[in-house]
């Protein structure tokens, strides 16, 4: 076993770079930040002990430049590189290049990334390891007769998917056998047009699925455990927006945690996995779960697991990368209370969630009991338009889900970002939604929420807030000094009306 690192380079930006630097400093490790032209004044650069310039703002000229990042590590004497999430974090070539340069890649081996990186390869590996996958064919179907046989076997509804595809092209839902032939023709010709490859395969259509994932953690000595689940069903355009631990479904059916955890550990073990990783599952209405894919890195939503288990995933990533043994055994892991996380994005919920980069004029942060804020921004910072819109993650912990939701609403009330638009108000709508509070989640929840949601007429509380807003704007705009009092001002009928109201 080697000694703990003295200096580590963080090959990322934004909130995750800040979170990693915090972890490094907590372990008394010096931190090296890297930055692009757009990020010279970024928070991660300000917080790090050292910083190295990479290049121009576009990622391919900075945060994706393996050569420059490795040069930066060598120049600063960093012994290891933490890739965060996104950018080079799941790039097997980069992990291998680090190993070749004698720099520790904080994550799994390049070989594990390769094995679990491709969706189809990971699916085969998961199947071989005994983890359930969505029933279907791996190889394209050739004719209607074969399609009928397969569809009958796996049961309707089924989903036709383009073998070469993605992005919903060449995809058809088929509810019954009489629709099958026509759908097969349509899907195939659409796939042909989009990908110059008309081959189509069949999968069971999972209706209103939940997205539940399992955190795994393993060392280089063969110890591998799971840290339970995260419910990530709240998504918009296949992007997660809110996560929680425990899953409300698993809370009702605690045996699911063990079953999914075991399946996740098996799948990870089959790839010789070590360090932190996440196995994603789809869960259907009958609580069957299916392996979806594995993320071979630290997840955005890792804080909810940290809050509930009390384990620091970044500390463990560093210790494992340095060769330490995982001293936490499966039976030591305890789940206590409930944690919820909101992803605060620079986007406008009132205008189709369009991105909203720009200058943050003012910022007040939520604080107080049970609140954790992982943020990468500050007042005066200009959020660049080159990168993804995640500004911060607001997570809360409380003894149960209901209290956690109440605490999140309170924290959102304290959170104020001015100058750019954020989705803070959108979370307030979701958190007060009855179906959300009942835990009736699925990946189409937000779409359905918007479909059934009608704009409410403002209640008395809301109209009074509107009056306060209008009045403050009027006073502020005219430069009237509210602290000063006009002497001898004529008493207006508005005052009289107001007084009369106050007397009542």
């Amino acid at each position: 076993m080697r000694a703990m690192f003295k200096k580590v380079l963080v090959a990322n930006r934004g909130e995750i770079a800040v979170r990693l630097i915090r972890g490094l400093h907590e372990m008394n490790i010096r931190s090296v930040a890297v930055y692009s032209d757009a990020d010279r004044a970024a928070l991660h650069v300000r917080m790090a002990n050292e910083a190295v310039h990479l290049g121009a703002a576009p990622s391919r000229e900075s945060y994706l430049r393996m050569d420059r990042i490795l040069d930066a590590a060598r120049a600063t004497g960093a012994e290891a590189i933490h890739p965060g999430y996104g950018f080079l974090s799941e790039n097997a070539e980069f992990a291998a290049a680090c190993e070749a340069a004698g720099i520790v890649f904080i994550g799994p081996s390049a070989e594990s990334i390769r094995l679990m990186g491709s969706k189809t390869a990971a699916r085969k590996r998961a199947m071989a390891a005994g983890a359930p996958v969505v029933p279907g064919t791996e190889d394209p179907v050739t004719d209607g007769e074969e399609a009928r046989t397969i569809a009958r076997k796996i049961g309707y509804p089924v989903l036709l998917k383009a073998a070469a595809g993605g992005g919903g092209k060449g995809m058809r839902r088929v509810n019954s056998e009489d629709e099958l032939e026509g759908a097969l023709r349509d899907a195939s010709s659409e796939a042909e047009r989009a990908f110059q490859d008309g081959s189509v395969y069949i999968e069971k259509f999972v209706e209103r699925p939940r997205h539940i994932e399992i955190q795994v953690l393993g060392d280089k000595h063969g110890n591998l455990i799971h840290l339970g689940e995260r419910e990530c069903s709240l998504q918009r355009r296949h992007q997660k927006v809110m996560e929680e631990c425990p899953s409300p479904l698993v809370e009702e059916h605690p045996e699911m945690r063990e079953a999914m955890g075991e399946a996740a550990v098996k799948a990870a073990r089959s790839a010789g996995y070590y360090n932190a990783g996440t196995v994603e599952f789809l869960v259907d209405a009958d609580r069957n779960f299916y392996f979806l894919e594995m993320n071979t890195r630290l997840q955005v939503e890792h804080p909810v697991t940290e809050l509930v288990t009390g384990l620091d995933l970044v500390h463990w990533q560093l210790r494992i990368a340095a060769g330490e043994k995982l001293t936490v055994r499966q039976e030591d892991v305890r789940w206590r209370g409930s944690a919820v996380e909101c992803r605060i994005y620079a986007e406008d919920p009132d205008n189709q969630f369009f991105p909203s980069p720009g200058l943050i004029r003012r910022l007040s942060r939520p604080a107080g009991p049970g609140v954790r804020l992982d943020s990468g921004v500050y007042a005066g910072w200009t959020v660049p338009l080159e990168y993804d819109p995640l500004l911060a993650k607001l997570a809360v912990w409380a003894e149960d889900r209901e209290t956690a939701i109440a605490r999140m609403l309170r924290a959102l009330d304290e959170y104020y970002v001015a100058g750019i638009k954020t989705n803070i108000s959108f979370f307030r709508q979701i958190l007060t939604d009855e179906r959300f509070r009942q835990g009736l989640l699925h990946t189409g929840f937000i779409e359905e929420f918007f479909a059934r949601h009608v704009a409410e007429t403002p209640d008395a509380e809301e109209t009074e807030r509107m009056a306060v807003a209008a009045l403050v704007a009027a006073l502020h705009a005219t430069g009237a000094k509210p602290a000063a009092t006009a002497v001898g001002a004529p008493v207006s009928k508005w005052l009289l009306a107001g007084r009369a109201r106050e007397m009542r």
Partner: protein
Amino acid sequence: MKTMVEVDGRGGTLQWDRTEQGSSFALELEATAAQTGVARILEVEPGIYSVLLNGRSYEAKIVPGADGDWYVDVDGRHYAIGLTDPREQAPGVRGQNTDGRQNLKAAMPGKVVRVLAAVGDEVSEGQGLVVVEAMKMQNELKAPRAGTVVLMNAREGMTVTAGEMLAAIE
């Protein structure tokens, strides 16, 4: 004083006066019950106001927004406030195209990644004219109806702000 006011798109009037007791006001907004009252308002930090109204305590934070609007946050709720002096208000200035000209504005801040039409081009309804990209998301500005491109301010690589006029068709 009297002003035309718009609160999150609801139009109306606000009358207010400074008095010894505080700011007395009357607010009428469409589809909302009329309100009157006296508010005690104190600017406690620059741009941050403590407001006491009907026994309740509010904190209001204000910053200038786009198009001369004000963004006011009241206890975590966000409001866009438009103010117009009634004497300055000319009829029909909000909105345009009285002369058949249609201005196309950027829906979001970002970088122009593609310009798909030039001045003089005949375009059909729904045809893409400019593609703006920000934060890994692309937005295509489309012709709202058929016509001729009479203005094209967009150039590839230029940075635009939300609401910036990029093109016009007639």
